[in-house]
Each structure stands twice: as structure tokens, then as C-alpha cells.
């Protein structure tokens, strides 16, 4: 479903350049959930942003569904992958009502005004339809993250890119959001890439985990490895030990 080869991201130029992602390659099959874990600054979010088409400075090749995509995406390419961001406070426009925020992807894809699908999208993520007339500040953090997920799903993309979707939430709310994501994945046969620094969230959601350090993948762990606590590199061992006190 997703194939990435030799992805390189460099910010700045000449002597001031910062090589953030160094030639990473990976593939994700349909319906699979891939986790990427690492410290802040290791480049995990940059990989995700490159996949979403938000990053302009990458080289290498990215293909969705067997078709290579470029830096500038067409509408059809954008519809393939949608992103959910970490902070639900920052990713929703504070002066737009929830309905406007949800209808916007449809409007910007030129597929009508989108209002007819707002109620259904809200109900799918377990929110009442009358929330469409509310503003983001009238919602709790968990409800806002549900809206962000609804907005990502409204174009029915086969791929969902999740950048720390629950790290701003309480554990009890985190459980609700993770359950929602798991249900949607089952219902729509979605492919996920989940970026997080929390190994317990990653191991709950993912079939396979890549451990990232300084822009490269240093380890790959399967679900069985995570359960048994098996690691293949010293860095992932450290990360593992630090996560479970």
C-alpha cells in the first residue's frame, strides 16, 4: 500500500544543512499498522509529513497503491492519505465551527459543500450531530481529537497518518480514542502509520514497529517481539527499559 525508498530530508543548505531523515526505506501492506517510535528530534514526524505531502524538501521515492507520488500532489493523490495531528487544540481553527472544519476537506476537493456528510461523520466517531454548530473551545480535548479523526476520515482515505494522536490526552480518554481508531481500521480496512514516543501505545496498536534514531531506523520489532520484550539493538533496549519503569 505504501512504499518508501531512500527517503532523505535535508533542511537548510551548504554548511548550515541539517540532515533530518537519512535514506530510510520501508513498505506497509494494506490493512497493516506500522509504528514508528523514537525520541523528539529523531525525524519520525518528518517522515510522516513527507508522506502526507506537507514537506517540500524530500528526495527519494514515495508510492501509494503502487503509484509514485511527487512533492506536489493532485487532488486524487491527496485523497489517498490523511493526517491526524498531535494537538487537537492547535489543529482545529478556533473561529470555525466544527461543521465548517469537517466540511472543508470536501469543499477543497471540489466535491460539493460537504454539509450533508457532517452529521454522519460526527456520529461515526461517537459524537452527537448537533456538535456541528459548536466551536472547538466548547469541546473537551478527547472530543476535539475525535473531530480531528472525523475530518481525516471524511474523504474516506485508505491511509491514515497518525502523529502522536493521544499524547495530549488523559489515559482514560486515550483508551477511548485508541478504541475508536481500532474500530475504524476494522470497518474500513485502513492502513495506519502511527508515530509515537509511547511504546505501550505503539505495541497496543501496531503489527510492526520501526525504532528510529538520528534519522535512520535502527531496529524493527514485530508484535511478538514487543510482547516478549525482545530487542535487536542497544538503543531500542534503552528505550524499552525507560518506557516500563
Amino acid at each position: 500500500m505504501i512504499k518508501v525508498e531512500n527517503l532523505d530530508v535535508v533542511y537548510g543548505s551548504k554548511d548550515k544543512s541539517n540532515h533530518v531523515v537519512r535514506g530510510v526505506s520501508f513498505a506497509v501492506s494494506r490493512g497493516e499498522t506500522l509504528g514508528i517510535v523514537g525520541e523528539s528530534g529523531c525525524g519520525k514526524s518528518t517522515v510522516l509529513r513527507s508522506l502526507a505531502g506537507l514537506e517540500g524538501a524530500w528526495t527519494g521515492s514515495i508510492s501509494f497503491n503502487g503509484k509514485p507520488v511527487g512533492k506536489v500532489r493532485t487532488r486524487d493523490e491527496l485523497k489517498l492519505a490523511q493526517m491526524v495531528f498531535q494537538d487537537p487544540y492547535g489543529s482545529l481553527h478556533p473561529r470555525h465551527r466544527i461543521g465548517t472544519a469537517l466540511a472543508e476537506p470536501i469543499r477543497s476537493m471540489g466535491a460539493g459543500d460537504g454539509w450533508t456528510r457532517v452529521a454522519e461523520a460526527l456520529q461515526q466517531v461517537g459524537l452527537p450531530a448537533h456538535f456541528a454548530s459548536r466551536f472547538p473551545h466548547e469541546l473537551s480535548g478527547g472530543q476535539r481529537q475525535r473531530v480531528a479523526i472525523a475530518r481525516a476520515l471524511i474523504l474516506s482515505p485508505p491511509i491514515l497518518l497518525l502523529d502522536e494522536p493521544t499524547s495530549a490526552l488523559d489515559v482514560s480518554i486515550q483508551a477511548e480514542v485508541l478504541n475508536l481508531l481500532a474500530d475504524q481500521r476494522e470497518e474500513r480496512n485502513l492502513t495506519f502509520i502511527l508515530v509515537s514516543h509511547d511504546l505501550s501505545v505503539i505495541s497496543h496498536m501496531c503489527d510492526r514497529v520501526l525504532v528510529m534514531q538520528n534519522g535512520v531506523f535502527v531496529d524493527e520489532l514485530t508484535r511478538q517481539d514487543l510482547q516478549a520484550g525482545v530487542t535487536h539493538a542497544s538503543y531500542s533496549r534503552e528505550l524499552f527499559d525507560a518506557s516500563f519503569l
Partner: protein
Amino acid sequence: MPDLDETPVLSVRDLNVRFGRNSIPAVSNVSFDVGRERIGIVGESGSGKSTTGRAIMRLLPQRAGVTAERMDFLDSPLLEKTERQMGGLRGKDIALIMQDPRYSLNPVLTIGKQVAEAAKLHLGARGKDAVARARDMLARVRINDPDRVLSLYPHQISGGMGQRVMIAMMLLARPKLVIADEPTSALDVSVRKDVLMLLDELVRENNSGLILISHDIRMVAAFCERILVMYSGRVVETLSRLEDAAHPYTRGLIAAMPDPKHPVRRLKVLDRKSIEVETNP
């Protein structure tokens, strides 16, 4: 070194905090004692755990009504102290470590100035002596190159290092009570453990009491002797081990956390109706 002094550092009975006159109490009837030990306060956001910490420091705004049958710090009532007396206590005897070093350090002063200020204020050190003490304290919190760090500004250091600087600043005066409000939530998992170990080590060394406020019940359980679980302003349970949890809220919180060793298809979510019934019979 075990301490023979059994009197609690802080003793709180029936602490109530409300904002505005007829509003819902943010904290209601909270009672606990802190000896020379580590206790943890856990709960969701809005459960009143930080408000409790701030009420002890008397840092809540004027409009907050704080009442308590007793709130004694080393046998003297905190609520009767004047603002001036509180100023003498804060930082010297009771220290508060906040969540994000990026917001709690002054962005326009160097680290050296800020840590030395603590030495000047609380230890009466001056000039070069204050800077030397700041340097020693930075070395104590395992900052590798303290001389270099002294001249840096807060934006030039990492979050983990910033939190070490905060700990250095706060523990320089050897306070008798340390309140750490989510000290590691803004940090990466890999540095989280180091910072907690460091805090633990220094608190033991000074033989002071520690109140660790956090939403992460497992982390708190690993570090503290006793855990107070708060829900909507009340302490619903006091535990010494997670396995003893009996209240549905505590059990719900523990079950809501994904555990890689015991994978489940769906995580348990809190059944808030039954918790309400249990807490307000």
C-alpha cells in the same frame, strides 16, 4: 539514613477549594499527611491534583476560596501566614517543580544567573560564592559541563536539561517539602527515568518530603510509597500498591492503559456512571 523524627512535614485536614461563590468545589475534603517520604497524587485532568499542590503553596488566585480545618507545615498553620511570610517559605522550605521548564525558566536570563539567584535569596551567598554554589548544584544534577551551561540561555538547552536546571534551582536551598507537578510530562521517555531518579536521590539525601503529582499511575506507583487517587476533587482511595486498588475509578485508570505484556483487542474505558454512584452514594 533513617529519620527518627516521626512528625509529619505537612498535615492537611479537610482542604476545600472553590472558585467563585456558588460553584462546584475544585477540591473537597482532602486530608493527608506527608512525612519524610514520597507520596503521589494521581488523577485525570480536572481532578484537582494540581489545585491541591497550589493550595499548599498558597499560589491560587485571590478569588479562589481555600479553607481547611488544618493545613500545617512543620506544625505552623500555612493559611494564617501573611503573604510576606509565605514569600520566605516558598522556594526555601517548600519548593514547587512545574511541568515545562520552557515556561518556568526566565527566557532572558542565563541559567547561571537564575540558579545563583536561588543561592543568593535562600542561602545568603554573594557574588562569586553564589555562582560557585550554582555551579556545584548543576554538577550535582549531573550536567556534564556546568561551566558552559552557566552561561547558556534556556532556549539553548534541551527539555531534559532544563528540568535538571529547575531541580537544581529548587533543591539548592534543601527544602523540607518538594511538590513536583508533572515534572516529567513534557520530557521524552528516555530522559524521564533519569530525571525521576535524580529527584528521588536528592530528596532522599536532604531527607525531605516529596509530593509527586502526575496522571501516570504506573510511574507514580514505581516511585512513591503511598498514592492518593483523586477524582472530581475528592481523594477516592489511598494505596501503597497498585494491586490493592479497589475503587472502580482506580481500576478503570489502570485497565485503560495499554500493557504490551497483556495485549487486548479493545482497551477498557471508564464507566463514569458507576464511578459517580460509588463516589456520591
